[in-house]
């Protein structure tokens, strides 16, 4: 990998293609960021890679719930995302956050769907004047 400073969009496109091709990108990406002294941009690069994957029909979604998702619920959410985004492939990354109390929060590179009880309570408290 050359040490020339590439744009994050190009990096994301490259690593998205690598992922779709089935190759591991963790080590090469880490090596590049360290060598290019751009480790501070790691989170942004990951987000850009997710966006690039979404453009290529591969959707990565962070799914947060108050309890562990069952296989049935994962399947239901995956079907929902496939249906609403027209993605060829959907991969969900489940997160457990008891603070959410109930419901589900789905974060995709382009949108967020938040139906958690915590979110509703926050909306309620936001109506304070």
């Amino acid at each position, binding site marked *: 990998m050359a040490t020339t400073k590439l744009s994050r969009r190009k990096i994301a496109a490259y690593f998205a293609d690598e992922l779709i091709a089935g190759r591991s990108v963790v080590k090469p990406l880490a090596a590049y960021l360290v060598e290019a002294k751009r480790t501070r941009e790691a989170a942004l690069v990951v987000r850009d890679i997710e966006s690039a994957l979404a453009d290529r029909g591969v959707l990565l979604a962070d799914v947060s*719930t*108050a*309890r562990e998702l*069952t296989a049935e*619920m994962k399947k*239901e*959410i995956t079907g*929902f995302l496939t*249906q*609403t985004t027209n993605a060829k492939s959907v991969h969900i990354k489940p997160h457990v956050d008891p603070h959410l*109390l*109930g*419901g*589900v929060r789905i974060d995709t590179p382009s949108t967020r*769907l938040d*139906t958690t*009880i915590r979110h509703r*309570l926050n909306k*309620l*408290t936001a*109506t*304070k*004047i």
Partner: protein
Amino acid sequence: MDFLTQFAATEEAASGDIMTTLGIHWELLAFQIIAFLILVWALGKFVYPWLMKSVDERQAKIEESVKAAEEAEKKAESAQEDIAKLLKDARVEAKDIVTTAKDEAAAMVADAEGKAKARAEKIVKDAHEQLEKDVIAARKALHNDTIELVALATEKIVGKTVSESVDKKIIAQAVKEQA
């Protein structure tokens, strides 16, 4: 005198007429007439003019005094009239001043009453506005406290009551609604 008495006795004895009998001696009479005339002339020449002058002067002074007294009386009468007129004018002016003072006092009282009324109305209005503000603030505080309390209570209750099955239903419902 002795000479005259002696002369007369001599003459009486000599003539023996009525004039002598009456004791009148022509010489003496003539002498007395001449002396009298001289006296009259002297008086008319020296005393009477001076006396008349003094009398005239005195009369003039008296007339002047009388005239001055009359003038003084006239002046006094005029002054009396002036005083009466001044008193009348003063009374009229005093009446006007009193009337004006009463009017001004009434106007001042009316003005003060108007200002006091306006001030009182402003105080009442401000009090109403402040009261309304306080009510609105209290309502806001109550609203916010209620929301806070509801959110807190909901969090406490939901955190204990939402079971896995309920959570599953909530998620399924949310997915269906969004689909």
